[in-house]
């Protein structure tokens, strides 16, 4: 469900599913956790291919942020209409930086 690309010290993780809902959130969390445990600390989560996230998907993203700990960094790129609205509605846009593009997220993270 995920594909990845390393750019310098930033790992870009792209979600290849249209929906990150209760049926997918556990697998998403496992696959993200595996990457975090492998030592990646700066991640951009590319949600540009995702059309829908529910509270369990959002909860899994929050779990990843906690797992990363204080020295880690997790930015969101490409969240569209309903996905970006979920971040706003839950006030998680105060916690995660939302970027329109992966490039913008990587640039901000590298600076």
């Amino acid at each position, binding site marked *: 469900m995920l594909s990845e690309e390393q750019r310098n010290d930033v790992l870009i993780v792209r979600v290849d599913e249209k*929906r990150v*809902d*209760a*049926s997918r959130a556990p697998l998403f969390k496992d696959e993200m956790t595996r990457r975090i445990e492998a030592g990646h600390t700066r991640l951009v989560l590319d949600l540009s291919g995702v059309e*829908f996230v*529910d*509270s*369990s998907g*959002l*909860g*899994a993203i*929050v*779990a990843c*942020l*906690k797992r990363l700990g*204080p020295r880690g960094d997790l930015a969101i790129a490409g969240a569209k*209409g*309903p996905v970006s*609205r*979920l971040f706003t*509605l*839950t*006030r*998680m846009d*105060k*916690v995660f930086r939302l970027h329109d593009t992966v490039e913008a997220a990587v640039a901000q993270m590298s600076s």
Partner: protein
Amino acid sequence: MSVGMRLHIDSDFDKVALLARAVRALCAELLDAEAADAVEISLVEAVNNVIEHGYEGKPGRDVGVEVSVHPDRIVIEVVDQAAPMKSGALSEAASEIVFDETNIDSLPEGGMGLALIRMSMDEVEYCAAPGENRLRMVKRIPAPAG
């Protein structure tokens, strides 16, 4: 005058997306994208809750959704035959999601579903009758401009 239909799935998270797509299609001509998104997230949260909490994740139980379309509103009722939600849970659920964003460890990983429903729909009401629970959610259709 209203027209309505009922949709049913088994208590299986894999099937919730089918419900969401079907209900969204019924809303598509009546609501703008933002309002249709609001209905979709509310429906999914409500159905997830029935599967996870009501049926405790057990498969093979029925989750019903009744959709009725009125001139001025869409009414979505999620119907189950599980043990009911404890009384007051809906009204006690925050109607806003509050946390200290500077304290990462305190951020919620769950417990946002009912609040999302309350924020997204115009009316929300829960009725537990013997043998059947019903979460009734209403989204108003804006009057055509002009």
